[in-house]
């Protein structure tokens, strides 16, 4: 162990602000990127499903119109 106490660990020999700022920034950016990447395929599947539903509706309307014409 390189530190004797927790407060010494936080202090980082006087460089605490810079060290924890960097670790914080890194964690923040990577968490945001992970959340964005993880949800990306679900968002696209949602879009595809929306489009499929719309196409299905259009098909039914077309079918109904065709029936009325005959």
């Amino acid at each position, binding site marked *: 162990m390189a530190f004797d106490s927790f407060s010494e660990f936080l202090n980082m020999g006087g460089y605490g602000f810079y060290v924890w700022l960097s670790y914080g920034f890194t964690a923040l950016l990577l968490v945001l*990127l992970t959340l964005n990447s993880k949800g990306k395929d679900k968002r*696209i599947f949602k879009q595809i499903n929306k489009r499929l539903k719309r196409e299905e509706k259009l098909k039914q309307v077309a079918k109904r119109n065709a029936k009325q014409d005959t």
Partner: protein
Amino acid sequence: MWKWLHPYANPEVSYHFTGKLIPWFAVISAILLTVGLGMGLLFSPADYQQGESVRLFYLHVPAAMLSMGLYLGMAIAGLTALVWQMKLAESSIAALAPVGATFTAIALLTGAAWGKPMWGAWWVWDARLTSELILLFLYFGVMALQNAFEDKALAGKAASILALVGVINLPIIHYSVEWWNTLHQGATVSKFEKPSMSIDMLRPFLISLFGFAFLAGTLVCMRFRADIIERNSMRPWVKALAKEHN
């Protein structure tokens, strides 16, 4: 080798293959990052000149190495997309660019937070810092080009060309500390001689490096899969998958 590679040119096969990789990569990355950064923060010795601030090394250097490594991967994908007209290579570029840009941003931010106490300035227009900033803009350029065209094929081609041309920046970044008089120090690890650091620092560094690399792999696979289904959204196999997600 071509016979072995050929099935992976099929988007559906690649989609399922990368899906199997993700949980493994994620777990390996979590273990390596916990061990590597834990060792780096708690057990590695302080530097005789830089004191405890040397613990930034375990973030800054892996991020900087990955920012360049991911760019190289993206440039190779660009070449593949242009020469062999492979759509999956364009998906790789789309997946690699945001991840590479994030690691570049981390390298720049942690570098600034390290520069302030060591050099007395958050930022200097030194060759290493400037060329790394250009790398960030190259990533942004590739991402912007990909979204700038309605036509996906044209967008992929434009992004591939920029990714490929930008590769000239990589040797400039690497050798910037030798070619110019920089405030940034020279290479510690990535050189042909023995790394000039103690094994007690090298060990946590290497573990963190692989941890970050596996994290990058996880994220790239996730984005690669999303890009595949977006490009193939008219295919029956994607429609079937979409119904499962309803």
